[in-house]
């Protein structure tokens, strides 16, 4: 007995996109160039929008289309553009050496992915769409967090925060059939938007004050 193709194809599409999001995340973990990192984030967000679009199409859920539109406008276009402009304005191209070197961070990310899958296993029966989206979502959150710790530049830390947010969105789309209530999604979205804009200004200020974007220099502020 074959399941109906209409439910088979969306599930596989979602699994594919989720896997691609994970790949983008891992690439981001070992990417030194700032501009490339921003583009990787944009691509990851594009896959997220793809997943949301599939969910919206297969369930005929109109309000998920709104989420798709917002993701496309905000995370694929506006935020990358904003960060891009900032990086060009400050003429910083490369991240300096991270706290943990790239091969080791790759290993750590692998471990975190394993942990994500382990944690997500009890919940897989709840999933209606795709097999491993929840695991990917948790992995995105964990690795995003690790990225935030590992990098020193404020811009990359902002990027890492945004990937964490992508993970949260993915979990929302994957776990609940129709996504979260629209109000909650809008709330999260605008939260992140505002946070990034404020962070952008702060990054600029940090650079003005300390002639660097290295956040570890902020410890000088301690009394």
């Amino acid at each position, binding site marked *: 007995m074959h399941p109906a193709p209409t439910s088979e194809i969306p599930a596989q599409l979602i699994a594919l996109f989720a896997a691609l999001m994970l790949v983008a995340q891992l690439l981001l973990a070992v990417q030194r160039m700032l501009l490339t990192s921003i583009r990787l984030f944009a691509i990851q967000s594009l896959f997220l929008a793809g997943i949301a679009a599939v969910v919206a199409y297969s369930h005929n859920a109109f309000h998920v289309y709104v989420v798709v539109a917002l993701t496309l406008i905000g995370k694929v276009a506006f935020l990358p553009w904003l960060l891009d402009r900032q990086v060009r304005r400050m003429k910083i191209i490369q991240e300096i050496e991270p706290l943990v070197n790239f091969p080791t961070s790759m290993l750590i990310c692998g471990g975190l992915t394993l942990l994500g899958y382990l944690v997500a296993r009890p919940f897989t029966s709840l999933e209606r769409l795709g097999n491993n989206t929840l695991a990917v979502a948790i992995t995105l959150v964990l690795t995003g967090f690790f990225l935030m710790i590992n990098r020193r530049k404020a811009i990359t830390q902002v990027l890492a925060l945004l990937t964490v947010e992508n993970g949260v969105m993915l979990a929302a789309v994957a776990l609940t059939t129709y996504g979260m209530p629209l109000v909650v999604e809008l709330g999260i979205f605008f939260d992140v938007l505002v946070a990034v804009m404020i962070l952008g200004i702060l990054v600029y200020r940090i650079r003005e004050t300390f002639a660097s974007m290295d956040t570890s220099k902020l410890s000088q502020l*301690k009394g």
Partner: protein
Amino acid sequence: MNQLPPTLLLLTLLGYATGVVASLFCLRAEKAANVLACGLAALAAFSGVVASVIGLLTGAATAHESVQILPELIPYLRFSIRLDPLGLFFTLLVSLVGLAIAVYSLGYNRQFFGRKNLGVFGAFFNSVLLATTLVFLADNAFFFLIAWEIMALSAYFLVSFEHEKEESRNAGVLFFVMSHIGTGCLILGFLLLFQTSGGYGFEGFHAIGATMAAGPRNAAFLLFLVGFGVKAGIVPLHIWLPVAHPAAPSNVSALMSGILIKTGIYGLTRVCFDFMGPPPNWWGVTILTIGTISAVLGVLYALMEHDLKRLLAYHSIENIGIILMGLGAALMFLHTGHPVLASLALIAGLYHTINHAVFKALLFLGAGAVVHATHTRNMEEMGGLVKRMPRTAFCFLVGAVAISALPPLNGFVSEWLTYQSLLQGFGTTPSLIRLMFPLGGAMLALTGALAAACFVKAYGITFLAQPRSEHAACAHEAGGPEVAGQFLLTAVCVFLGLFPTQFLRLLDPVTSQLAGSALSAQLGLANGFVLAGATATGGTVSTLGLALMAVCLLPVPLALWWVFARGTTVRRGPTWDCGLQGLTPRMEYTATGFSKPIRMIFKALFRPRREVQREYDFSPYFATNLRFESHVEEVFLTRIYRPLNWLVWRVSRRMRALQAGSLQAYLIYIFVTLLLLLIFAL
């Protein structure tokens, strides 16, 4: 159903609230702000007095009705007030004293013109009155805590109102810290009650003690004891009182000592009698013991003080102790099943509560007038003020007589009632614990004697003899509103002293609510002329009779003089000065000298230390320069709080290593916690 009390009470609350807003609108016009703030507070307080008296007399209060004053926004949090007898009684207290203080402040605040922002003062003054009234009326634990915090914060701002002085700032911080330790305990206590009742409404807490398990019940009692005890100022949680009361402006000191610390008494009464009764025996024993210790230690430390306002602050600790003796005895009687005696002891405690509020506010207002006139709080630099400030001196004298528990004033009545309940308590139980009662009575007697000695010192050194400093010599009487405020409280003192049986009618609903019997009929004999001790073995006394007797005896010496000494001549001469060049203020008895015998008797407690440095040229008998220093150790500060403080510092210094200041470190803390939780959940 009598609708007058609730309406008037809502007007009171509205009046205070308007006072807050109006004062803030008049930030620039300080005279208008002063008049508006004090005027509105006085009007609101007056309406509160009327409302609570009517409510208590007509029994409208027993209806236990709940009035919602704001819509419900959050689950569990209802902004509702309830007119129950206990709350109304304390509302009477806050309104009565608040009225006098508001009138007094109208004049007293003039000294701040052009110097401080009176709009801010008026706003906090009104908000502290509003919050205190709400504390007494709140019908929901959340609402109670909100009011409690607003009260504490407004009081903090009032204490540090003269923030240009370092003393005021430090006092404010100490008050803030102690107050929040207390609030923390209260929150935990209410959570324990919530576990059993499943709600935060006070009607759900009523008599909840019977259904609680022993462990949480005792834990809740201890938490409430600490939480309310900090505010009341019981030993050893009292350290903020002698610091915060003197540092505040004097009208604020009166407010704090008269009203604010009574919120602790209200809370303990509410919790022990209304919520968690019938109590185990050790609750009553604990409260009685704490009360006794506070009373004795409070008055002993007061005797050592030369700072007029600090002296009064220590007396607050003493009087809180006396109040708690009454409450503790009442709890013990409830445990052994003697509702009449329990009511008597409760009446004694509550009567002393309102008495202390009245005479302590009166004394602080008097001290404020004196301090304003002499620009010092040190008694050794005062003296001779009875001629320069006769009205203030008279009011202060009445307050001093009242607080020393001398008949016929109000302090005597409530302490007499306390004695009655303690002495009759000996027969209530066969166990050895009954020794607590005569012991407590003896300690109360010691306290009374020491308090009298202390006020002989305070009044004598401050008001009598010759002025000891320039400032005291050119002191002036306080202005009209100040004197009016003091006279109002003096009149209340006299009324509460002479007509106790009339006043006891107000306490009837309270005791029948909390201890199960109304006693005013049994306590008043001969149409209310004589006060009786409730049971057959109790004593009787009549303050009114004593006063009348004194008036009748007054002509006797005059008659004797007229009979025997009419024809003798009177010669006036200077006082014998040992052949020196006239008497100077330096020869006067000092406060330190006056209290020396007591300092020596209680040497073990005070650990007095003195240094004398003598400089001389040729013979040790003719010193050219003499320096004398004398110190008394504050045992609680040096033996408990300082080691504790040191410990906290050490631990926090270790903890500071965690606060590396690096963003990555903070992120790692969160991340590791997250990972551990996830792995733990697997």
